[in-house]
């Protein structure tokens, strides 16, 4: 590897370090001027003339998370060694900028399971010109538009993020149920004066035994069942991001996918890399062909997982369009069984947002009596607007 030849104006370590930090910032790391100063301090603490040491030192200072840990070496080589690996870094910056645009003309970037790290463009150089974003202002005016479009048309990063954010808010709205009453508790914020005084009688009026009280948390758990059959394919990505958001917000939440079979995906969804998780899941989902049997899937759920997953404080979220090849009776029976164990069942239906949709499909008609709510979910706004609905449940 050849060492980078810096332009004559970049004199001294400080200048180059500033350039390095700027290079990292372009590649998506959140770094301020403070880090530049720290980087120079760090180099003072090690033998800065040894590249390997300098690399390790800067790595532990600058990298914020596991994702950055994996990419740092490439970025380091790209800057200091003029390495042939420049593209990996710049590809990231490139995607970040472009992702804000509607991708109508970028079908090739939407390849399923597309782990956008690495196999992107091979633009050489620092890519500063592109990152500036000539049409940066256009982006802002478009975003509002994007939110109102049917989810089928959007599968880019931003909509995934928006869906995840909506899910986070929703999960918070459901989870933070606090009781108004205060109960006696071993470790609580407030003293329970009444009990403390009563107990003090036994000690001759000295309040030695302190009792405390606190508002008991009554968290609602979320169990999400997401339909990934052929008819739901257009929505699957955004819904998966939504489900991932639910899972991330709450360590007790549980998630399943189904089409003709049911599988538990809580573990896969806890993967930190959204893109990789989505890719992994769509692969899992595609392996089983197109049909849906909601009834059989829910029966399987009620048979196997329900005893563990459901309590009276559980909200069961079903994300499905209700097109089902199985017998509607089956579905009704499964739902009523789940109903008996769970607190609430909410059906989020992407078709419900359409103008002339009526739930006349046999399966949907059979399911309706068992649901606490049947809500539309065809746009991100609709997903975000669910929050007040859930607060009421």
């Amino acid at each position, binding site marked *: 590897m050849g060492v980078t030849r810096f332009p004559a104006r970049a004199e001294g370590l400080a200048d180059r370090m500033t350039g390095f930090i700027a290079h990292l910032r372009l590649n998506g790391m*959140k770094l*301020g001027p*403070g*880090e530049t100063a720290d980087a120079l*301090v*760090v180099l*003072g*603490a*090690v*033998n800065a003339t*040894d590249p*390997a*040491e300098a690399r*390790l*030192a800067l*790595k*532990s*200072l600058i*990298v*914020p*998370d*596991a994702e*950055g*840990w994996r990419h740092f070496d490439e970025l380091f080589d790209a800057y200091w060694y003029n390495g042939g690996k420049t593209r990996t870094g710049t590809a990231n910056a490139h995607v970040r900028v472009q992702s804000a645009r509607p991708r109508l003309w970028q079908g090739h970037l939407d390849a399923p399971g597309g782990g956008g790290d690495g196999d992107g463009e091979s633009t050489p150089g620092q890519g500063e010109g592109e990152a500036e974003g000539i049409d940066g202002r256009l982006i802002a005016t478009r975003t509002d538009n994007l939110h109102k479009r049917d989810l089928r048309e959007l599968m880019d990063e931003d909509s995934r993020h928006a869906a995840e954010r909506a899910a986070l808010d929703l999960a918070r709205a459901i989870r933070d149920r606090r009781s108004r009453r205060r109960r006696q508790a071993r*470790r609580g*914020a407030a*003293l329970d004066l009444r009990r403390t005084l009563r107990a003090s009688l036994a000690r001759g009026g*000295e*309040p*030695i035994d*302190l009792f405390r009280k606190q508002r008991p948390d009554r968290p609602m758990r979320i169990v999400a069942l997401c339909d990934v059959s052929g008819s739901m394919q257009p929505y699957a990505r955004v819904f998966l991001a939504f489900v991932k958001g639910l899972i*991330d917000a709450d*360590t007790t939440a549980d998630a399943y996918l189904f089409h003709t079979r049911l599988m538990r995906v809580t*573990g896969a969804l*806890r993967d*930190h890399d959204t893109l990789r998780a989505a890719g992994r899941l769509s692969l899992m989902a595609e392996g089983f062909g197109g049909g849906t049997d909601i009834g059989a899937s829910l029966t399987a759920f009620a048979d196997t997982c329900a005893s563990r997953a459901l309590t009276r404080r559980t909200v069961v979220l079903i994300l499905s369009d209700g097109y089902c090849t199985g017998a509607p009776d089956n579905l009704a029976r499964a739902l009523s069984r789940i109903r008996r164990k769970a607190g609430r069942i909410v059906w989020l239906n992407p078709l419900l947002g359409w103008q002339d949709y009526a739930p006349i499909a046999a399966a949907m008609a059979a399911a309706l009596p068992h649901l606490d709510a049947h809500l539309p979910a065809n746009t991100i706004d609709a997903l975000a607007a669910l929050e007040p609905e859930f607060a009421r449940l």
Partner: protein
Amino acid sequence: MTAGTHIALKEALGRIGYVADDSLAMALHLALSLGRPLLLEGPAGVGKTEVAKALTEHLGARLIRLQCYEGLDASHAIYEWNYQRQLLAIRADHASEEALFSDRFLLKRPLLEAITQHDPPVLLIDEIDRADEEFEAYLLEILSDFQITIPEIGTIAASARPVVILTANGTRDLSDALRRRCLYSYIDYPTRETELAILARRGPKLEARLARQIVGVVQALRREDLEKKPGIAEMLDWSAALAGLGINDLAEDRAAVQATLVCLLKTAADRDAAPAEVMDRIIGKVA
């Protein structure tokens, strides 16, 4: 500063029995020389907590540990007033207000304890991602300025700067503010050579061939699609179990090996994912 100080640290830790790789040694070296907290991330069972213990031993310092959990609050992490003693003091010697809110009635919890020590201790904040966001915000003041504000007394500044090590394994994403204040190191599952070295230092006395087999099997299992991948602690447990049973070759006594898998695979689903046939294949490959 002299060259390769992190190498010296790495060797010192090695003598204590902790096998660190270069990047971890560098991170520890920087944490010590710059006085900044160090955030360690990585899968469960790769020895994140063990780092703090080894470092404590190396420094000859005191280890103060704060185990985080959901609902951890200031009164359990920082300080609390000893109400009973205060009440007694009021009754017995009609103590004044200043006297009531003094050191005598202060119950020090780990964080306050850590910054009021004479000699710098090692403060281990374990599984910080289990605590809630509010607590993380509390930590920011302590980690950047090493001081704690108690309304009734005032601000207590650290008498000796503790070496702070935080660990996390991804229950929840940590805030950028916290990450920015910390040095960072990601500890992954060890490579084959490192794991052999760990087994040699920490495990029972084994023949070289059996040690290679054990490490080979564990490494192969980590590549399988398991819910809970076996960590280093599991590997050591397993080697101890095998040594206890007097097994000298994994390929010889297959039934016993299958029975001892309870040391490695800790969920029902994982047990099912590694039936005898799969184990046969793996052992056949490493033997």
